[in-house]
């Protein structure tokens, strides 16, 4: 069975596993404005999402996401 990843779970995952001090409002910010965010954090986030959901996350679609909430929506769909 695949775990459903709520936005709340996702936010906790970003804070705990990536160590990013993310505020709720920063979920909708452009990724360039999220403190500490970069392409290596994307790699770690994809790995963390795959571990939590038990499903492969297609990176291609995530590359077009411009905010963490958009990444959550795409990951929740996959």
């Amino acid at each position, binding site marked *: 069975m695949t775990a459903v990843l709520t936005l709340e779970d996702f936010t906790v995952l970003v804070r705990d596993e990536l160590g990013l001090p993310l505020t709720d409002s920063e979920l909708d910010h452009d990724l360039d404005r999220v403190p500490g965010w970069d392409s290596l954090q994307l790699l770690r986030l994809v790995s*963390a999402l795959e*571990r939590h959901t038990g499903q492969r996350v297609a990176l291609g679609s995530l590359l077009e996401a411009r905010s963490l909430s958009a990444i959550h929506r795409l990951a929740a769909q996959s």
Partner: protein
Amino acid sequence: MASTEAYLTGVGTFLPGPPVDNATLAKMLGVSEEWIEVFIGTRTRHFARDVGTGEIQWSLADLCAQAAEQALADAGVDRSEIEFIVMGTATPDTLMPATVNHVADQLGLNHLPTYQLQSGCAGAVQALDLGRTLVLAGRHRTGLVIGGDVSSKHLDPSLDFSGKAPSELVNFVLFGDGAGAAVISAEPAGRRLALVRVLNQLTGLGREPGQVIEWFGMADRDSDRQALVEDYKAIEEGVPVMAVEILWELLGDLGWSAEDLDFLLPPQLSGRMTAKITAQLDVPGAEEISCVAETGNNGNALPFLQLERLAERIEPGQRALAVAVESSKWIKAGFAVEAF
């Protein structure tokens, strides 16, 4: 008698084992294969240890001795003619003896001066610089210049890579192992490549290192310090700028223009970074000689891997320029070669 020119008369390289593709590396690290392809752009690399078991299959000395043998064969030089060895590495097998002396042992060489330069991406160029200086000073006629690295010393398959900090994790998707060597001589023979200029310049005064590799002794072996730290943002910003400066500094020193270049050997950070830097170097008339997308970033082996590819293509009268940047303490390096 002093020579007026130093020549690279033979080049050899050695890459351990079969190429390791992104699917295999991604599975081992527990990270996205697609991410490595998109953000690193390196397709394969080689490791001196078994990626499944972690068992060591080659030492750095083994890799370097193999590359040196290839270079001797390529130059058509008998080992008895070798009067010195200079080697650059950031990852020696042991701190003592210096790995260069084990390489000499494997090559059956004795009673000659050996030098080992502790350096990262600029080490091979520094080795070429010292080798060229020894030849031009008339101290020696022919020597071996070697560069190699075994980055997989840090690649422990039993580790959980998912928890690694980005500054540590990035190293595992960039690096590979390998070695290269060249015979340098006062005799214009063999490959007939004149090493006409070498740039080797520390520019890191007061600047934080971009790359740190720690070493641990008995007193701190259980320390939780990261063994590898890469400030990849500083590197992404700093290296392209330095590469352009190196290109123009070398061209100015040589009295060459960019249009005079037939080949360009750009810094080999990763497939993606090298493409970006090459675009910024902007020498459209020169053919790019790169290898990192296939070999991985194996540090001091890279300039020799590029030289080997260059030697197969360059024709008499053609010119090539190599650019290397060491981001540890920000060293500018490069060299120019002219075929005759």
